[in-house]
């Protein structure tokens, strides 16, 4: 791969990493959420370049369309909007930055110095293959994932419903009697 695809790769990489750094350092949590959107979009671009077209579409649909909207909901519902101050206090900045920089150095060194047996990547449509594998070889994880999603759905609905107050308790006692 060379030429225009390389420029696209560097653009997607810069968008992903730059937006991720903004997520880490922006003090306003709303701005951080918007930066996270750009980071997710950049990752989708990297998936396209890695011949993962289905995954790129899933990334846009689930992350940008679903998870980010959920996060924005959480931001809006968990801050008193009347305060007009959606701040995001931080702590332990210096030790955390030191740990992360050292870790990044180690990971990069390992990535560069390890001799991987790299083959030439081929570009093939992946959606049909993923669908077939999900229905054959990976059927059990697929079903377990569906049960997990159902459990998460019920759990989230149960957790987020309003407080069960005194009237409901009274009802239950009536039912007992």
């Amino acid at each position: 791969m060379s030429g225009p695809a390389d420029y696209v790769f560097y653009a997607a990489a810069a968008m992903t990493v730059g937006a991720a750094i903004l997520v880490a350092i922006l003090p306003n949590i709303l701005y951080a959420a918007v930066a996270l959107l750009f980071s997710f979009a950049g990752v989708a671009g990297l998936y396209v370049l890695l011949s993962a077209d289905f995954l790129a579409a899933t990334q846009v649909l689930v992350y940008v369309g679903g998870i980010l909207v959920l996060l924005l909901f959480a931001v809006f519902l968990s801050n008193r909007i009347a305060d007009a101050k959606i701040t995001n206090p931080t702590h332990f900045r210096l030790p955390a930055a030191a740990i992360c920089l050292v870790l990044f150095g180690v990971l990069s060194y390992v990535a560069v110095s390890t001799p991987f047996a790299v083959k030439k990547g081929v570009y093939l449509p992946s959606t049909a293959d993923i669908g077939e594998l999900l229905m054959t070889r990976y059927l059990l994880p697929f079903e377990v994932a569906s049960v997990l999603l159902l459990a998460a759905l019920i759990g989230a609905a149960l957790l987020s419903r309003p407080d069960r107050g005194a009237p409901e308790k009274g009802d239950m006692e009536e039912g007992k009697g």
Partner: protein
Amino acid sequence: MTLDKLLIIAAALFCCGLYTVMTRRNAVAVLMGVELILNATNINFVAFSFFLSRVMGGQIFAVFVIVLAAAEAAVALAIFLRMFSTTGTVEVDTADQLKG
């Protein structure tokens, strides 16, 4: 585009996510950091699958990671709302009622 460049990008994403998790006190921001970390691992899965193997295992695993991230975000949001209605804040430091 080479494998080590992609691994470095994923490492940068992971470290940004780790920094976010370590420094932020707002639970929603901590969740954002976790999502960044999950994205970094997904990039690694897909990159290794593209450069080192001919089977789709990496992409399938990435699909399952996305499913888990979605479920986690939904449950986390429900917990944050419950925490907000109980304590009036979603700062992780304040959730210490179970501390011995």
